[in-house]
């Protein structure tokens, strides 16, 4: 194997993690296209640990210091900061290998945080670093190698010239840096793919080596364009290697408690997963038919919530296609094992046509986004699209939602075959949609390069280049803050309008998923109730991103008696699992926090992130917008699938539908719901301690202890008396 040329090298003495922290980060400077490579070890202050905890919190704090209000995503000053958090790397409790990446996003032009499983963050910590900052732009394509075993960091000139897609790069680098087959599991690679050169949907693929299948597996920090930023820095891959991993590598204060709490959850998973979510057999794809049953499955760009062909993509169909009986955790000790993969799968299209590959997923979001939402009800096709999206480095969620928008535009005649380079992009036209994906990877033509810039830019460019009706596109494009919505239909849940569109980074489901609670259970009858849920759940879920945990073991498995011991919203919080988190956090760090403290820890970072976005020229009420398709039907065919239901909704709004045609009814319902949206925005802002313009108040930042001088100065410039509640 040809060795790569060492462009720069730096040695350091790795510090062992103690109480969850090494208290050191590494800054890697790639220069400004001038080959000026630099390395710096930076101390972690007490304030950083106390206020920002780790993971996403560390990422935001470090990025704040690295950029200015004028920094753009493709400026050298932009960073990718990768960090796990204090709990990241424990092996006693499931889901403890999560990695958080923070950067200025090409899609949203503000901060973004994206998470993935895989081994990178734990191995980075055990190599001596609580976080990695990557800044600058290299003048040649590089591979960065952090060798925790030998206390050495190398910047290498990449020798991969032909196929720079993720599976190729990852397999090669596991082979390149491993001493033998057994050593491959001690390596984790972060890469994107060739599409990252053209798309703002570039994802980062985080690897772990699967010794049973003898392949590198990929988990995606998919959203927000982190892979695009990585490519812009001319970094083909980041690699970390660390051979010494044990259950005490984090240096926990209380191993006995970790083992006790972990054992309890392992037992729950073993005893109840088969009758609860079946994560071990099908992963999150267990939701496919459930979402259909509740009219929540996105079909044809979110127009409809169910489809007659649902049986084709039923979770049983995916269960049959996933290898069973394999311990599919993406970090040691995760018995929930949701990282499903296919047996060898023969590709039918593209550059690897005819080759057999192992495909990770599809998870629910991909099964719906590259399935029902684009009118495809064919698991084999979706598995292939999933493979190529990962391989090319494209986020499957934005890809699915973006193509759904394209298909609807095509069906409406807003764009034509002349514009699309000859592709017929009707919903369900599998061959031409797959061809579009392949073209996007190569930046093959103007149309595929336009689509690859994301839905917000498509609206503008379709109007400018092709004369498409901008008003119609604004109605139907399911994006917020520049990010494509993930794969749930939120129209009939007012709380979920907020769960999607009153978020920090755009309509991604990792803040709050309140649809059942609001729409089905009817537990949030008032705007104040909805606002309370939109305060608690985003903050609770944010906590996982501070400490390095996966959300799934929180509520995709429950204690046997959770549903009888607790009632209503209390049950939804899964109190015993929340106590588990308190216990393991204290057991790792030696601290003594309570359940309430978890929320305060998150609230601090939540508000800091909001203020960061204000600093970048966003973060105001105008940036929180919900498209009409998110609020209700836009076209008559959407209304006509459930006319009695929607007539009933008008009556609830005090509007008598008799005598109105469907267009008039749609207009009335949209008008009413737009008013409700504004009520919701006010209620949520008030509960979060923000003003009417969506800006955290001075009182809020003082209460949370994040009243740093530059934060206060920024707020004083932007808080207006007329916006106060």
């Amino acid at each position, binding site marked *: 194997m040809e060795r790569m040329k060492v462009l720069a090298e730096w040695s350091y003495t790795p510090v062992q993690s103690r109480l969850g922290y090494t208290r050191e980060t590494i800054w890697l400077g790639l220069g400004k296209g001038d080959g000026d490579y630099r390395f710096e070890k930076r101390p972690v202050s007490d304030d950083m640990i106390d206020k920002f905890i780790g993971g996403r919190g560390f990422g935001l704090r470090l990025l704040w210091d690295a950029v200015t209000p004028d920094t753009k995503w493709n400026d050298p000053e932009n960073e990718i900061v990768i960090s796990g958090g204090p709990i990241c790397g424990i092996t006693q409790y499931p889901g403890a290998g999560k990695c958080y990446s923070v950067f200025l996003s090409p899609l949203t032009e503000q901060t973004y945080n994206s998470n993935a499983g895989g081994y990178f963050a734990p191995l980075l910590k055990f190599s001596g670093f609580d976080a990695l900052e990557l800044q600058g732009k290299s003048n040649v394509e590089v591979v960065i190698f952090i060798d925790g075993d030998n206390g050495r960091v190398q910047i290498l000139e990449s020798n991969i010239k032909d196929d720079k897609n993720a599976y190729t790069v990852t397999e090669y680098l596991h082979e390149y840096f491993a001493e033998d087959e057994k050593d491959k599991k001690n390596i984790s690679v972060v890469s994107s793919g060739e599409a990252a050169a053209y798309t703002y949907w570039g994802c980062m693929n985080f690897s772990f080596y699967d010794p049973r299948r003898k392949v590198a597996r990929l988990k995606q920090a998919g959203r927000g364009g982190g892979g695009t930023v990585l490519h812009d820095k001319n970094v083909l891959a980041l690699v970390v290697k660390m051979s010494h991993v044990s259950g005490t590598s984090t240096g926990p204060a209380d191993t006995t408690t970790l083992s006790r709490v972990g054992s309890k959850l392992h037992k729950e998973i073993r005893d109840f997963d088969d*009758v*609860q*979510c079946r994560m071990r057999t099908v992963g*999150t794809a267990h*939701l496919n*038919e*459930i979402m259909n*049953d*509740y009219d929540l499955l996105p079909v044809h760009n979110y127009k409809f919530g169910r489809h007659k062909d649902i049986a084709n993509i039923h979770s049983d169909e995916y269960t049959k296609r996933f290898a069973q009986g394999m311990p599919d955790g993406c970090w040691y000790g995760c018995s929930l094992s949701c990282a499903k993969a296919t047996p060898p799968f023969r590709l039918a299209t593209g550059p690897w046509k005819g080759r057999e590959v192992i495909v990770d997923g599809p998870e629910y*979001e991909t099964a719906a986004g590259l399935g029902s939402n684009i009118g495809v009800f064919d698991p084999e096709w979706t598995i292939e699209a999933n493979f190529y999206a990962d391989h090319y480095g494209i986020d499957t969620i934005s890809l699915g939602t973006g193509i759904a928008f394209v298909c609807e535009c095509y069906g409406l005649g807003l764009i034509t075959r002349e514009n699309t380079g000859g592709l017929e992009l009707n919903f369900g036209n599998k061959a031409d949609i797959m061809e579009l994906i392949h073209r996007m990877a190569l930046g093959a033509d103007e149309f595929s390069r336009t689509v690859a810039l994301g839905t917000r830019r498509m609206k503008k460019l379709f109007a400018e280049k092709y004369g498409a009706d901008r008003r119609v596109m604004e109605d139907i494009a399911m994006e917020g803050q520049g990010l494509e919505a*993930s794969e*749930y239909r939120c129209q009939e849940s007012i709380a979920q309008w907020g769960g999607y569109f009153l978020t920090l980074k755009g309509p*991604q*489901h*990792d803040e709050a*998923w*309140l*649809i*059942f*609670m609001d729409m*089905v*259970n*009817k*537990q949030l009858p008032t705007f104040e109730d909805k606002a309370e849920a939109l305060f608690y*759940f985003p903050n609770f879920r944010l906590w996982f991103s501070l400490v390095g945990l996966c*959300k799934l073991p929180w*509520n*995709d498995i*429950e204690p046997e008696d*959770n*549903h*009888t*011991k607790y*009632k*209503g919203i209390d*049950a*939804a919080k*899964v109190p015993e699992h929340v106590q588990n988190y308190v216990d393991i956090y204290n057991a790792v760090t030696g601290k003594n926090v309570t359940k309430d403290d978890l929320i305060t820890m998150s609230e601090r970072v939540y508000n800091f992130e909001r203020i960061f976005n204000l600093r970048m020229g966003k973060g105001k009420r105008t940036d929180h917008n919900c498209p009409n398709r998110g609020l209700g039907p836009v076209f008559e065919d959407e209304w006509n699938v459930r006319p009695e239901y929607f007539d009933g909704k008008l009556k609830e709004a005090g509007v008598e539908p008799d005598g109105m045609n469907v267009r008039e009814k749609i207009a009335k319902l949209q008008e009413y719901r737009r008013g409700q949206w504004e009520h919701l925005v006010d209620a949520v802002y008030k509960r979060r301690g923000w003003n009417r313009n969506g800006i955290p108040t001075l009182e809020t930042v003082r209460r949370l202890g994040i009243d740093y001088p530059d934060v206060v100065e920024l707020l004083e410039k932007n808080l207006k008396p007329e916006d106060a509640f």
Partner: protein
Amino acid sequence: MIKVNGEEIPWHEGMTVQNILDAKNFTFRMISVWINENPVERRENYNSTPVPDGAEVEVVHMMSGG
């Protein structure tokens, strides 16, 4: 009549929890059912648990998604 999550639905003799779930198409596995403030123990009891006329039934779906 009975109420399910605040909505009135007709009651019939011999009505069980499972009848309600079927009628409402509540297929999600992660639910808790309470009748007149009393929890119903396990899913396997839904077929055999009667629902009295006038009952207030809560069928709480746990949070899901993502």
